[in-house]
């Protein structure tokens, strides 16, 4: 028997609290980490933290979903690292719907951050997983993509696109022994939701990270986290359109 191949994880959007929670747990398991995002100072701090928590390698790399020029160096670094390549995508942006209503050009950035940017990078990464015949891509989408609502349907539409992309990617990667998981968190206690009104059943980022790791170990396809959001969204999707269009939830 050879030793288990090292796991390498690329974390896109590693400055978010959910990503930080996942990175730390992976560090404790001894994974190699590439932490990608825009705030290089913050990424460097998380990288140092992860090394002290057990990661044999943790590096900060520049990633901007709206700047495809940042993608190739990340892909090159991933191919240079041995072991099983994995990725987790936490990027996305949700400008308030009122701001989008007055400035529709904001839609472009929302779609780039939440869908096309990460999708284009993952498309570059998929061949590496296929070549090595292993690895998991975790795409964090959102329950907002399950049905368009008046409060955030541009963000929801971008996430719906990403959800569909993840579904197709799973279909593709399964042929080579690699895998893709779609994660749909409900409300999570992050800087994005801090102080927002109307939050309920808010989950800590640690709990989301735990459920992602469980899903990876069990090769799940689509998870809601916390789990009960599957049922909440089942109900929301089941509301007939004539009624739904009058609701504001």
């Amino acid at each position, binding site marked *: 028997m050879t030793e288990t191949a090292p796991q390498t994880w690329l974390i896109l959007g590693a*400055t978010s*609290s959910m990503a*930080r929670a996942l990175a730390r747990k992976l560090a404790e398991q001894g994974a190699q980490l590439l932490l990608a995002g825009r*705030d290089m*100072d*913050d990424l460097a*701090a*998380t990288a*140092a*933290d992860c090394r*002290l*928590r*057990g990661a044999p390698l943790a590096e900060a790399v520049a990633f901007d979903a709206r700047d495809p020029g940042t993608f190739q160096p990340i892909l090159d670094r991933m191919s240079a690292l041995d072991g099983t390549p994995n990725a987790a995508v936490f990027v996305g942006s949700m400008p308030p719907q009122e701001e989008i209503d007055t400035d529709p050009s904001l839609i472009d950035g929302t779609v780039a951050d939440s869908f096309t940017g990460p999708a284009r990078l993952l498309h570059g990464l998929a061949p590496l997983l296929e070549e090595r015949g292993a690895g998991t891509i975790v795409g964090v989408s959102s329950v907002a993509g399950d049905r368009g609502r008046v409060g955030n349907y541009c963000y929801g539409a971008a996430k719906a696109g990403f959800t569909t992309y993840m579904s197709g990617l799973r279909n593709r990667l399964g042929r080579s022994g690699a895998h893709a998981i779609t994660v749909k968190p409900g409300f999570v206690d*992050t*800087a994005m939701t*801090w*102080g*927002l009104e109307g939050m309920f059943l808010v989950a800590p980022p640690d709990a989301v990270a735990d459920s992602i790791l469980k899903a990876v170990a069990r090769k799940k396809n689509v998870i809601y986290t916390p789990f009960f959001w599957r049922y909440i969204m089942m109900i929301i999707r089941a509301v007939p359109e004539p009624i739904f269009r009058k609701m504001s939830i």
Partner: protein
Amino acid sequence: MTWKQTDYSGWGRYYTASGQLARPERASALARIAAETPCPAIGQRRSYADSCLNSDGRAIDTARLDRFIGFDAEAGLLEVESGVRLSDIVTHFAPKGWLPSVLPGTGFATVGGAIGMDVHGKNHHHLGSFGQHVESLTLATPDGPREINAADPLFSATIGGMGQTGPIASAKLRMLPVKGDVMMVTERRIEGLDSYFTHLDESQATYTVGWIDATAKGDALGRGILEEGETGPGLVPPAKRGKRVPFNAPHFALSGPIVRRFNAAYYRRIPLRGRTVVKPLEDYFFPLDKIHDWNRLYGKRGFHQFQCVVPLAEREILRDMLSRVSGAGLASPLAVLKRMGPGRGGMMSFPMEGYTLAIDFPARDEAAWMIRSLIAMATEAQGRVYLAKDAFAAPEQMDAMYPERAAWAGIVNALDPEQSYATDMIRRLSLRSQA
């Protein structure tokens, strides 16, 4: 959003506050808030009363500033963000042979809070207080980060300074090399207070602390269990994951008859001739952390902890305190006695050479009267109460207890003339007045 309107309280849940909290996740966010809205920083709110509250004002919650920044194994120096919890350091560094030099009774306390309260632990008689092992720290001032060390006069105003020199962004801690990550604990019954004093005075152990049955009277007054601990190598099952207290207990859960029986059973659990057991470090240092939210056991009215220290020569006052407490039938399951060394890190630090006594009380009117009389007794005996726990001291008692208070107020008022960093406790005890 930066600010969240919320109700919050300290660990004792007696005082509450309503105000706005920010919870920055990045150092840059902390720096921005510190510049735009100077206000006190709070950690996990494990102080008992109102030192972590700012009613109708703003405060910075450091819970998400919780990263290890760097470790220099040659020098034993660990740099961390201020919201790192002490248990997190123990979990990750004890297996590598290092512990924080000083650990208080809860691992939920943050590094920032441990500095602001200059906490002490079971090894105070050897190593002094937490702040004495801080190599340097960085304050998030309105003008940007400012690193200070013992050479700066602001340092001793910050150690034990209850956050009044501004939010702490990060700190470098001098760690303690340890032989292993398990604790060998020798527990023995102590039959009364005189025997307790003798044992505490003679104890050579690295870690020493005593539990007292505060319901015992007469000849048994001051009986309890002395615990002496040494770190060592070994293999024990890792500390179990904690259980939660899911709801507020009814007020009679900790009533007199129940607590008296509990305490007697707890005392007799140790064999007559004592015993030595091996425990995971976390179980030894943070025995109550295994029960999350144990403060709910005291019901929704909350509870108080009285803690004082009196000079060695004044120790007989502790006998009067204990007989007053047991005589009143105000049941307390948790009372702790320890001998302290002289070590203290700052101008407002609690420790002094002597004996420290801590007693929990359910929050009732009788408890408030009792605690006020105990505070008066401690003042009389040239002792002081621990501000991390105090709920009932009076402003006029402060200068006798904390002789450097006025000088300290001068330093922090010069730094923060608007009193932006003041908390409910600072106002209640007029700690920053310069009359």
